């Protein structure tokens, strides 16, 4: 029951929105779809859902074209939230579910249960526009899953949520996965993807940069990174070491890329010599690091991604 996307092409006038996108999502996994704004994430999702036709290429779920499946197979949360502002919360949830053939009474009970779970049960009969942005987003999520879809496609689900709500949504994601649902979400917040995703695909300017399990993608650069922190603020000793490039100079710790042939052990020795070591770790680069390296290497102009990844 994998979702297989093969060689999608889509052109809008002069813009090549998708230029041969291929990747597959295994059933029951959480899949991160990563890319900058305008990379082609939304277009790909719309094509998967059949809201838009590709110029060429195929999308199958379990070996059958996506339009062969009943609509209730799919749950879609668009990037720009789409709800009826003047309609009471529970009424519109029931309306959406009824479009997928869910009986209204059952949808109403389920919707109330979900609202209570997201701690907005008291807002069930309020008009949507009276809810805060974060609460509206929870309603949007409920609208996406209320009909019990097998495959959820969510476009930037975490944007605009405060940490408490992010945690709540993450828990809901993992619960869906545990129920055997397949989740695909796009994001430019790479730390979220790293935390949640079994696999990822990175796209840029309509082209696939890399795809695979999160671990494989992180290892795809062919080098490791060292994360190190000492009690002192001065990192002059680290900067002066040969074969070492600081890629992240955070207050909490520094991340360095180590050239081939340089042993991480030498950095540890230098760290010990420069004061008490608070942290030392040898590992794979973060997704963010991979992203900056891979996408940055393709094209240097107008790269908004590196900042987008860190700001969010």
């Amino acid at each position, binding site marked *: 029951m994998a979702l297989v996307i093969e060689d999608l092409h889509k052109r809008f006038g002069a813009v090549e929105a998708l230029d041969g996108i291929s990747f597959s999502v295994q059933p029951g996994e959480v899949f991160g779809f990563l890319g900058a704004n305008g990379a082609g994430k939304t277009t790909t999702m*719309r094509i998967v*859902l059949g*809201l*838009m*036709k590709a110029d060429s290429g195929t999308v199958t779920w379990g070996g059958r074209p996506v339009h062969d499946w*009943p*609509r*209730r197979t*799919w*749950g*879609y*949360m*668009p990037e*720009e*939230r*789409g*709800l*009826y*502002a*003047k*309609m009471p919360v529970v009424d519109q949830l029931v*309306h*959406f579910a*009824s*479009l*997928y*053939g869910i009986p209204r009474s059952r949808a109403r009970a389920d919707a109330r249960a979900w609202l209570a779970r997201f701690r907005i049960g008291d807002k069930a009969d309020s008009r949507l526009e009276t809810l805060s942005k974060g609460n509206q987003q929870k309603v*949007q999520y409920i*609208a*996406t899953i209320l*009909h019990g879809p097998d495959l959820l496609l969510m476009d930037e689900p975490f944007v605009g949520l405060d940490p408490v709500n992010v945690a709540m949504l993450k828990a809901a994601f993992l619960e869906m996965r545990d129920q055997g649902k397949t989740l695909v979400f796009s994001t430019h917040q790479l730390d979220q993807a790293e935390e949640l995703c079994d696999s990822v695909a990175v796209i840029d300017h309509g082209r696939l940069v890399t795809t695979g399990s999160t671990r494989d993608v992180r290892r795809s650069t062919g080098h490791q990174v060292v994360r190190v922190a000492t009690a002192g603020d001065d990192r002059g000793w680290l900067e002066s070491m040969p074969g070492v490039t600081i890629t992240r100079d955070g207050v909490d710790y520094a991340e360095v890329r180590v050239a081939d042939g340089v042993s991480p052990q030498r950095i540890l020795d230098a760290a010990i010599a420069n004061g008490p070591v608070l942290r030392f770790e040898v590992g794979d680069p973060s997704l963010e690091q991979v992203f900056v390296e891979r996408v940055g290497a393709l094209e240097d102009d107008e790269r908004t991604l590196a900042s987008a990844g860190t700001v969010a």
Partner: protein
Amino acid sequence: MNRTANVVAIARREFSIRIRTRSFLIGTLLLVLGVVLIALLPTVISKIDTVDATKVTIVAADDALAGRSAATVSTLLNAGANAGQSGTSATAGQPDFVVGIATDLPAARAAVTRGEAAGVLGIERAADGTLAFTYYSNDPASGRTAGLLQQAANAIAVGDRLDRMSIPASQQATLFAPAAFAVAWPDPARTEPIQGGAAAVGQDMLAFGMTILIFMIVIMYGNWVAMSVVEEKSSRVMEVVLNAATPFQLLAGKVFGVGLVALIQYTAVVVAGGAALLGQPTIQSVVLGGPAAASTVPQGLTPELLLLFGLYGVLGFLLYASLYAAAGSLVSRMEDVTSAVMPMTLMSTGGYLIGIYASMGLLDARSGWITALTFVPFLSPFMMLGRVATGVAQPADVAVSLVLLVATIALAIWVAARIYAVGVLLYGQRPGARAVWRLLREGM
């Protein structure tokens, strides 16, 4: 997924949120009030008229002349006024004009100046016996009352001359007996009865009113459909809904949902208007006093005309609403709706104006080009009723126009669904005519 179930679900939402809005309630109330008021217009006019019956004073050289003149003036004035108002005042037994007799001319003129009477008719006899009439009034000399008074003056003068020639009153009656006068069709082949004044006005007016109602249905609810589409587009609900329902289901659901609202509103209007017409005699007797006449349906209000009103109203709405939805799907902001629906607005307004002008007699409803236009599907909802009401349309004409209309609706829905399917996911610049054509040919 069950097609109809989604159409019903979408129509249901559309209907239930609209029926609860304040604008719907107020709009329905105003429409009902307006129609009831129009239906009761005769009663209202009578009421206003009886409240200020016009007072005319006669000052004549001798009492006999004054008495006879007052009778003549009263008959002529009230008859003239009643002819224009379908005789409702007579029913209520209240004359529109009260004619009095006075002897003091300066005092009577002063009373007119003070506004206590509408005018004074002074009658003087010259030395040679002829009568001279002077009407003292602040009303315009060319007014209806002045005109009627002049007729009265002629009658009085002729009667007076006959008196002086010693013609007995019985012979005078024969002299004044009205001549036989008839109106007939110019075309000898036409045998249907020419409608009498009151009935013809009735059916014309009904067709006129129904055309206005159909035009209002098309414009108002068509815009509702377009705005509802843009609302979903601008709030991006569209993408959520489209994951569950097809564009066609969405389009159909919207048109039916809004159509049902229209149907309810106009049923309320028709029922209220009908009740007002039927209850008119009773209301009249309460308001104006006097016995209640039997309830009568206006002569022109035939079941056929009502049925055609319903048919053209529903079909006209379906045709225009699907196109309004398609137009709405091409824009992303509420501000752009008006310009997007402009082609439909122009088309319907054009048909409406020609239809209205033809039924008012400003255009010749029998001319070839008007007849041809009444078959054009986009225009027939506004034009055929007028032709039917004036008796110029044959049943076959109506059938042909209905068949054309239904066929066009099928085509319009197909075109609209195609534009809609692509348009709803188009954001940004509004596509021009050429882009729309390309979308139509290629689909998504």
